[in-house]
């Protein structure tokens, strides 16, 4: 075995080609290429523009409600009897998840680029709601693509999007989940490239999206890092986040990547087990391939056809992952582990009962990992879990699964 060269920093961006190592890139049709290159230019300019920064700050503070709290989950900690568990409360943001952090940033970019129409894909509906929200606020017409499987299991969010004035387009191809919604959004974008801005909801897609979304989401980790230092006087031992496309996770992880003492764990949807195809653990059980504009780990068959996968959670039900995670996996800096549907469902109920916080099913995957490791850790050790969203959207689905009488 050859030794893996350790980079000076894990926090560098993508390279000129938009690659993180061999992952990422710009695998898009020519029609989109000029726009994708322009987006990158505009993003670089915006980053250096104090007026852009100020407007983003303003929205972040007064509209989103940042900073989100870092909450010491004392009841859960006592219940598990091990490491101290802190929750980064992205569920308390306006619209109920971390997705809004990215949407306020991208809507400002759309405005800056003179675009007049917004499109988005959504799985759990949290990104769709966040995109529809900023579209409403800034007066853009907005189309959200959502698979019919997801519309069924995330009904409250469909209603929210419609109330916000978005046109929710039902997608019926494939297994009608997030991957198919993204295909449809890309088809719309290719067709309406002259006036349309595509608000991608995760740290995925062609360059510069993975980097841009990461930068907008990094506020999570930057806040958490200074909050824990203030509160405990030290860095955490472990940080944990759930991985769909990977935006809440990279947002939490990125500011900690060069803190070598911090163990970082990304939780993939293990679905009904990794043996068959009923999971979405692309980094645990997939291999590199090209989809949706970038090279990354994908669930695919021997012929390179993308598999559909499965997760109890619509937001994690995606057969790929953002390219920076693929790179972090290979570099060994971050551990990616699966959590199964039933474990997530248990954690969902546990957090609800002992802390009075109903987590999103996506976030429940991260909680489940903390439940697994906290008891064997010391009482003076610290875990931070990203509570990426609240579970209101999942209440009906979970009640159905548990056969609750309402």
């Amino acid at each position, binding site marked *: 075995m050859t030794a893996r060269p350790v980079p000076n920093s894990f926090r560098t961006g993508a390279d000129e*080609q938009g690659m993180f190592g061999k992952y990422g*890139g*710009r*695998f*898009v*049709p*020519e*029609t*989109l*290429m*000029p*726009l994708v290159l322009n987006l990158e230019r505009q993003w670089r300019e915006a980053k250096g523009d104090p007026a852009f920064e100020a407007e983003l700050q303003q929205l972040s503070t007064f509209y989103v409600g940042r900073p989100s709290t870092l909450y010491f989950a004392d009841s859960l900690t006592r219940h598990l009897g091990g490491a101290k568990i802190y929750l980064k409360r992205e569920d308390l943001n306006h619209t109920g998840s971390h997705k809004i952090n990215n949407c306020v940033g991208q809507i400002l970019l759309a405005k800056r680029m003179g675009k007049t129409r917004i499109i988005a894909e959504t799985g759990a509906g949290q990104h769709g709601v966040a995109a529809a929200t900023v579209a409403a606020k800034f007066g853009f017409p907005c189309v959200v693509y959502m698979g019919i499987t997801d519309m069924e299991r995330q009904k409250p969010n469909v209603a929210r999007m419609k109330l916000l004035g978005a046109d929710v387009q039902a997608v019926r*191809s*494939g297994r009608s989940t997030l*991957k198919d919604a993204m*295909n449809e959004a*890309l*088809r719309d974008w*290719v*067709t*309406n*490239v*002259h006036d349309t801005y595509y608000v991608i909801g995760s740290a995925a897609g062609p360059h510069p999206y993975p980097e841009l979304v990461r930068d907008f989401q990094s506020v999570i980790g930057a806040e958490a890092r200074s909050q824990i230092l203030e509160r405990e006087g030290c860095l955490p031992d472990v940080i944990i986040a759930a991985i769909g496309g990977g935006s809440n996770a990279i947002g939490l992880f990125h500011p900690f990547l060069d803190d070598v003492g911090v163990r970082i764990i990304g939780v993939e949807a293990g679905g009904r087990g990794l043996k068959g195809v009923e999971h979405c653990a692309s980094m645990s059980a997939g291999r590199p*391939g*090209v*989809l*949706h*504009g970038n*090279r990354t780990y*994908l669930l*695919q068959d*021997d*012929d*390179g*056809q*993308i598999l559909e996968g499965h997760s109890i959670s619509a937001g994690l039900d995606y057969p790929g992952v953002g390219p920076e995670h693929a790179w972090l996996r290979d570099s060994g800096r971050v551990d990616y582990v699966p959590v199964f549907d039933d474990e997530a469902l248990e954690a969902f109920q546990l957090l609800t009962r002992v802390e009075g916080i109903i987590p999103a099913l996506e976030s429940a995957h991260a909680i489940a990992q903390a439940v697994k490791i906290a008891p064997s850790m010391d009482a003076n050790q610290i875990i931070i879990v990203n509570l990426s969203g609240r579970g209101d959207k999942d209440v009906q689905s979970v009640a159905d699964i548990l056969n609750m009488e309402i």
Partner: protein
Amino acid sequence: MNNRIGRRFEELKAEGSAALITYLMGGDPDFDTSLAIMKALPECGSDVIELGMPFSDPLADGAVIQAAGQRALKGGQTLKRTLQLTREFRQVDDQTPVVLMGYFNPIYSYGVDRFLADARDAGIDGLIIVDLSPEMDQELCIPASRAGIDFIRLATPTTDDARLPKVLENASGFVYYVSMNGITGNALPNPVDIAAAVARIQKSTLLPVCVGFGVKTAEQAHVIGRASDGVVVGTAIVSAIADTLDSTGRVVADPVKAVTNLVTELVCGVRQLDRRGRDVSTAI
């Protein structure tokens, strides 16, 4: 030019005709039927065959070609079998250029070097890979050109003058002008705009410039053929095949005949002839 694509365009130039490039999805609705259709295409006048490689997530394709890909995959089509299709076609036809069209992942999964060797061996002349723009040329374009397989570049209405040289830089075979911002199956935009775009590209390259996306009828093929070096017809052919299938994808009429009827008409359009073979190129 010593390959089939180059030779074919030379011949057509000598005849003063644009090329008719016909698309079909490999393995739609099954291997044997698509092989039979493929063999019939040159006989009824198709100059170049564009053979679709089915992919689970065809993000530049409309409903008709998406459905064809799904039928092919359901019938067990793989990249390996698409190469096999070409190999069997080559046993009866060593002249007609065959160009593979599709998305990168199945090729990446197959392994680029192994794929290029097998594709050459099977008699593939060119590749059109929708999700590989010039920025990604190291992935496949450059290795393909080195292996003697043309890499046909897509130019689009968003490819402006500043970008055009980049698009043409490593192009070979012919240039495929996508008539619209959109996906396959959409309506054809104003031919005047298309003609202007083609003329602009022709000024910057010696390669033939062909037009695809949106051409469905002989009349359209006629108009676009006059303004370019070739016309690509895809969705209309795939639709003609689909019309011979029942809702489960079973063949219930004659797909070969459906395609040859359509292609015979399209050929008249492209060759500037009316249906009785009279020259109408000056009449319109």
